């Protein structure tokens, strides 16, 4: 084993390898998560995109799932020697050159405020900003789709202004509507399913984000640029 690899725990504990800005750990027997340990930014995500393209081509790969500055690699069969696989992921990370995905620009019309903006008041309290300022800061932002996940077609958007960061709720809303425009921590997005949701809603968008019968079921793709356009502001 490579001497430069810092092993967090003994093999009997957990196989976690951490070096040069990335950390690999297993989820069950066939999946491995590699996480960039540095800043949560576009530079890290560009390297994740490059790493995704490399790992997708490996013969043992069943599925790749890029996340927020991380990548889950699901293998076809359980490897007998997980350390070799973990080291290979770390090497691929080191070699991953930053790439930029050429995406589309998607404009999403939003009704800010109104009945669906259930958490706008709490966001104002936390930020010390008026509702008008919160809304303006949100629609003036230029966002990048870092990854899709959680629910069909849901895009995790990066680029939220730190002034309107808002932690996920400890008790999720039980029945948030599909279309709610939400903030979860330092991320924003549009809810694609009606149901329990821990993110904070500040508005509503009509745009359908997913169609299972389409050749490209998800409207968003990693690398796309998203702009929110205020269709109406009901404060």
């Amino acid at each position: 084993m490579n001497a430069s690899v810092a092993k967090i725990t003994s093999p009997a504990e957990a196989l976690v390898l951490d070096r040069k800005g990335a950390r690999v750990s297993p989820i069950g027997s066939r999946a491995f998560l590699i996480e960039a340990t540095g800043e949560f930014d576009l530079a890290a995500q560009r390297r994740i995109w490059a790493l995704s393209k490399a790992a997708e081509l490996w013969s043992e790969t069943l599925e790749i799932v890029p996340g927020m500055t991380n990548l889950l690699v699901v293998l076809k069969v359980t490897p007998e020697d997980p350390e070799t696989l973990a080291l290979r992921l770390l090497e691929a990370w080191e070699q991953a050159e930053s790439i930029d995905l050429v995406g589309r620009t998607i404009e999403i019309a939003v009704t800010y405020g109104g009945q669906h903006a259930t958490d706008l008041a709490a966001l104002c309290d936390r930020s010390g900003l008026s509702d008008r300022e919160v809304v303006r800061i949100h629609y003036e932002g230029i966002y990048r789709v870092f990854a899709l996940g959680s629910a069909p077609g849901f895009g995790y958007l990066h680029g939220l202004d730190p002034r309107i960061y808002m932690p996920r709720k400890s008790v999720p809303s039980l029945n948030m509507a599909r279309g709610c425009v939400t903030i979860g921590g330092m991320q924003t997005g549009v809810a694609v399913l009606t149901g329990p949701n821990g993110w904070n809603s500040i508005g509503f968008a009509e745009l359908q984000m997913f169609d299972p019968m389409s050749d490209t079921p998800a409207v968003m793709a990693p690398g796309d640029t998203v702009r929110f356009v205020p269709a109406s502001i009901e404060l």
Partner: protein
Amino acid sequence: MIEIIQTGPFNTVQDLGRPGFRNIGVTTSGAMDPLALKVGNSLLGNETDAAVIEIQTYPFKLRFTKATAFVVTGADCGASIDGRPVQPWCALPVEAGQLLELGQPRVGTRAYICIAGGIDVAAVMGSRSTSLRGAFGGNEGRFLVAGDILQLGDISASLNLPATGIAVVDPAYALADVYPAPEDGALVVRAIPAGEHSLFGEDAERFWSQTWKISTQSDRTGYRLMGEPIKPTTPVEMRSHGVVSGVVQVPPSGEPIIQMSDANTAGGYPKIAGVIEADLWRLGQTRIGSRLRFVRVTHAQAAEVEKAVAGFIDDVRRTSRMVCGALQAMK
């Protein structure tokens, strides 16, 4: 064709799931007991991943509207054809008009009705599995109701089953060498420590040593466990990342959740462990209210179990074809 005569809620068409779309947020779905599905299909000469009916609520009745062959695998629920008992794990020919009935399970919790040719609903994104959350796939993206009519697929190499059928030994017995017996009534579930395991400090040991109870808030999405809470030594705010079924996450309450077939594709709770793929089917057959204990294993051990299970399924397919061929030749 088959017609659903009586059914409870949450019974759906499933195959081995819809892999390859987690990267756009689409959960894999698929049978909660994939081993029962594979064995059933192999016994019938179907493609291993042909679609079947997953029964979670009983009683369930269906009528065959054409002659075919079927097998009920998974939970033993005292199945009968026109009132005559049929053995689980036994593939039988069936005539048009015959009624298949399933009662409350005696052992296990989910039964699989596998039929020659498979259930022929339209594949959506490469799979016939029902995605209840996304409301697509399977039979119109919903669970079955009385009156539903399902088409059956064509089978390329029909087996010519003998009238008395051919049976396979219940995998729980056939694979007893590779699956540990319950300890003090608790199911033994093998798992590998995951990324945040060490963050739990001494609580990590209590995760492995205590017996957990499967709460009533458990379904195809995930199993919520009840026990003495475990907490990380420092709070962590994770960046969202992809997950697979079997991941054991620990929400702020300290009571772990095992994500199952219909789980979210991404998560952010700290994860203490991941159940090995070869043990997921046993969870799929474990009842709400029963107890389980996690046992730590290595990847090498998990790979060994996986190989044994794959070997068993190959064996079923080969043997069933051979036996049917020999019986046919003797006629």
